[in-house]
């Protein structure tokens, strides 16, 4: 287990590590885990040590008389029944305490965010401000947050390891995950319940910022998009391409995607402020011109089984759409 | 050459009887899971029809009584076979099978009338859990009826003397078990709503 702890020092950074907590839930779990690891290491050394000892000390040597027939020893049996029981109590008590501390109702004033899992992206709806965004969750440092989570389709699991444990999101149920992030930074995560073809491509990131930056982000996210005449020519072309009805109809952007004032689609991520996000496609691609173009050219190549069909765009259309999407800050 | 006496066994019980009790234990888990699911989903259907609207207690009470009587017939059939009383053995075996068929007739009537009234497997949670639970039970009754008719035929072929009483006893165990399961279903589904 020294190797385990050593890993925490060498290599890295490990952006999804459970061993480098950055939130209270992560710390609670890590502390409990390290206790169990040390106890387990002790048991490991004793048992494996005994095994090696008997193997060496009691190997058969030529000319030995048959060994004495020992059938059992009641006191030993009691002893090695009680000893594990004691160790387990040492694990059980802090376990129950941690459960009670972390699995209760949220304190007043907690930030409430609804999380909805989709194949294969994450939707966030901020309760108070009404902000709707996707994949990139912004949180203020030091403030308790309650994620109320469900799924729009199959079971997924929301997991940002450095912030804490995971919770499954299940259609028809609301599960809650409660924690307080205590460091500013970007914390990666991904879906942790097998959810179909692109389960591996359902990443997320949590951006924890100081309260001023978070407040500013909220304001940005609540602002409606810039009016069309303030857009560049390319972006205006992109807006037209965005709104264009295509054949087949399923290739039409506005059917699935919402942009405030333009469209109301609910199947795919809300794109009103897509330009403000650092990654797209379930955290799979950088939110750059190249990344956006790669996605628009062939979503299924990036995300096998993607619910977004290949919209069959021409290169000029792609360039225009990229300009438009980048304008949606 | 087949002997009437069993071979030596460690418990004194015949292998077949012991196997059958193990089978009944397993079937308890099967029906237990089906009944538990029914209970867990009770009252959670989003659309109707509901149990109150559609279940017919008086009629089902008759079919329940019929099944209980069939267990009585089974007991009498076993006694007759053990005594070597061919006439009554055949009568009571036939009566058990007949009463079983009557029960199945009631089930058929109930299922078809439910479908007429808008309750199918697909309609709601009640429909799914009800039909699969009672359908599984009905399938067990059907297997039992087939088993009994086979024994009846064997009797007519003069191959069901007292030395074969064990086979009838095991069929009886099965039949009584299926009856007991029905009592539980009747109570849980029809009586306690």
């Amino acid at each position, binding site marked *: 287990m020294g190797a385990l702890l050593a890993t925490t020092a060498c290599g890295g950074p490990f952006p999804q590590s459970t061993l480098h907590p950055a939130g209270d839930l992560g710390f609670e779990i890590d502390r409990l885990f390290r206790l169990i690891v040390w106890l387990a290491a002790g048991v490991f050394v004793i048992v494996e040590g005994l*095994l090696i000892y008997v193997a060496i000390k009691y190997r058969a040597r030529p000319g030995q008389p048959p060994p004495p027939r020992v059938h059992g020893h009641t006191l030993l049996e009691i002893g090695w029944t009680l000893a594990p029981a004691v160790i387990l109590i040492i694990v059980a008590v802090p376990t129950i305490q941690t459960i009670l501390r972390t699995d209760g109702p949220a304190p007043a004033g907690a930030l409430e965010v609804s999380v909805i899992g989709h194949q294969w992206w994450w939707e966030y709806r901020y309760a108070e401000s009404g902000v709707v965004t996707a994949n990139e969750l912004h949180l203020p440092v030091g403030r308790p947050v309650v994620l109320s989570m469900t799924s729009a389709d199959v079971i997924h699991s929301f997991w940002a390891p450095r912030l804490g444990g995971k919770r499954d999101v299940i259609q028809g149920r609301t599960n809650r995950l409660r924690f307080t992030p205590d460091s500013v930074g970007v914390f990666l995560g991904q879906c942790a319940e097998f959810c179909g073809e692109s389960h591996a491509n359902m990443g997320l990131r949590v951006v924890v910022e100081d309260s001023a930056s978070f407040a500013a982000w909220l304001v940005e996210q609540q602002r409606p998009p810039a009016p069309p005449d303030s857009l560049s020519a390319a972006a205006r072309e992109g807006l037209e391409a965005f709104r264009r009805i295509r054949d087949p109809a399923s290739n039409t952007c506005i059917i699935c995607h919402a942009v405030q004032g333009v469209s109301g689609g609910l199947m795919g991520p809300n794109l009103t402020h897509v330009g403000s996000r650092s990654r797209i496609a379930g955290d799979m691609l950088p939110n750059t011109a190249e990344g956006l173009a790669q996605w628009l050219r062939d979503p299924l190549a990036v995300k096998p089984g993607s619910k977004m069909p290949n919209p069959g765009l021409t290169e000029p259309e792609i360039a225009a759409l990229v300009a438009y999407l980048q304008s949606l800050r | 050459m087949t002997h009437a006496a069993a071979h030596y066994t460690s418990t004194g019980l015949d292998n077949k009887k012991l196997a059958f009790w193990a089978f009944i234990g397993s079937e308890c888990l099967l029906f237990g899971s089906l009944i538990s699911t029914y209970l867990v989903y009770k009252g959670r259907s989003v659309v109707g029809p509901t149990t109150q609207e559609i279940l017919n207690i008086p009629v089902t009470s008759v079919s329940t009584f019929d099944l209980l009587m069939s267990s009585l017939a089974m007991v009498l059939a076993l006694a007759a076979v053990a005594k070597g009383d061919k006439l009554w053995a055949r009568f009571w075996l036939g009566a058990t099978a007949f009463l079983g068929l009557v029960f199945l007739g009631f089930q058929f009537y109930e299922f078809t009338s439910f479908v007429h009234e808008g309750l199918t497997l697909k309609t709601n949670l009640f429909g799914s859990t009800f039909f699969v639970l009672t359908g599984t039970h009905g399938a067990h009754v059907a297997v039992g009826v087939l088993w009994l008719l086979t024994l009846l035929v064997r009797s007519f072929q003069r191959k069901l003397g007292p030395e074969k009483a064990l086979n009838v006893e095991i069929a009886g165990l099965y039949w009584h078990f299926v009856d007991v399961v029905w009592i539980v279903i009747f109570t849980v589904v029809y009586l306690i709503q």
Partner: protein
Amino acid sequence: MWKWITTTDHKRIGILYGVTAFVFFLIGGLEALFIRLQLAKPENALVSAETFNQLFTMHGTTMVFLAIMPMSAAFFNYIIPLQIGARDVAFPRLNAFSYWVFLLGGLFLNASFLFGAAPDGGWFGYLNLTSRQYSPGINIDFWVLGLQVLGIASLAAGFNFIVTIVNMRAPGMRMMRLPVFTWMTLVTQIIVVTAFPVITVGLVFLMFDRFFGTTFYSVAAGGDLLLWQHLFWLFGHPEVYILILPAMGIVSEVLPTFSRKPLFGYAVVVYSGALIGFMGWGVWAHHMFASGLGPIADSVFGATTMMIAIPTGVKIFNWLATMWGGQIRFTAAMLFAMGFIAMFVIGGLSGVMHSSPPADLQQTDTYFVVAHIHYVLFGGAIQGLFAGIYYWFPKMTGRLLNEKLGKVHFWVMLVGMNLAFFPMHFIGLLGMPRRIYTYRAELGVADMNLVSTIGAHIIAVSLLFFIYNVWRSWRKGEVAGNDPWGGATLEWTIPSPPPEYNFTVIPEVLSRLPRWSVTQMKAIPDVPPEPIHMPGGSYWPVVAAVGIIGMASGAVAHTLWIVLASGALLVFSIFRWAFEPFEV
């Protein structure tokens, strides 16, 4: 060939199970190698996402249902009658039936590959991913039907062995004189006949949802997706004890023989096994700690899970005490039994880590669990089964496996498995979930994944030594004689391989260690005093099995007449089976 198809001899059926299970083990192993090759580096494109999902689903399903369980069944079949002093099992034709249903079920599941539609919903098939809506193809149909078919095989064997062990013991073979392997088998079979009905119900619900539009797992109709998880894990947790108890039984036989000392604490080991089987029913929701069951349920199941570590630990200490003060011979069988202890302890300790719900919230659904399961199932069950093979191969074939090759197999496999599975602890803790076909380089787990891949291939190499050893030794190995190891139990009193009737006379047993006992049992004559008539074969078990698989195939093909015709064949074969003259 015809003799093998119609055989009802438990020894032949045991060999059929063993060979078939080993072939499926290799298939599951190949699936693992592909998985590991795909994960050897980040963002690899060796296989597609869909193919990968089929690979890991089939790897899990194959290893659990087509490799470990049937390999254990090979030993149940061959060895149990010999250990209890019986001539065969209680229901020889039912025994054959179990084998044929298993074989056809395994072929049926793997036939899905031919259609490019292997099951792809994970071995645990969570709804609603496996509903018709989200898995429209026939992949999950193959899975649902294949598992039900295999369940029939296991249930039939379960009833057979319960009756055999309880009812067909030789005079004097009291329950507390039974060899531990036989005891553990009895506990395992009781678990089988109680747990399999639960998964059967869950699968029937899924089948009805997919085929007939019922609403068992429909959220829109008010259903609860957790119903599946509860039904599955109510079966699934006892299932892992089905997987491990027989191997623990084997270890409990091998250690005393090669320590030249009786098993320490026989009664405690037996009761611990029974207790594990019983307590195994109370822990299932520890697979659901992330599902949001609430703090009370989490605490209760955490506590019950911790408690089950106690009888498990007690067994390990008793095994160590068996070796203590003994004279240990390091045969290949003994090495694998000791390897079981060494590796199972690691798996057991990671299991204790999982038992704490908050800690488990970081571990569940990550490679940490993959590490745990492979330490207990590969390091534990598989090593235990290899111990059994090296121990009982001489009894079954009359020839010894080559010890040198066996030792190479052991050490290379030990290195391979630790390289393959130990890094997975860290990979999981560093944030790699399970069941993903690729991962990003920035996670920092690429190097460890590569090490794991190399380890998997080293395991494969070790198997080559084993396969060569078996191939060579089957015909040309050193002749074994009745008792090459100095064993204590009844199987070592008869020739290797045993005659068809096993014992010339049914022995009268006077102690738990008949061959070591001071009060020697009466010697068994070389030839039977009067001719022993053993039942001939029967082909109705095969026909019935064909009827069952026909029904499954018709269902997958959505073709009713095939289902009905096969059902008729099944019913017909049952009648012929029932009225066939067959004397046990």
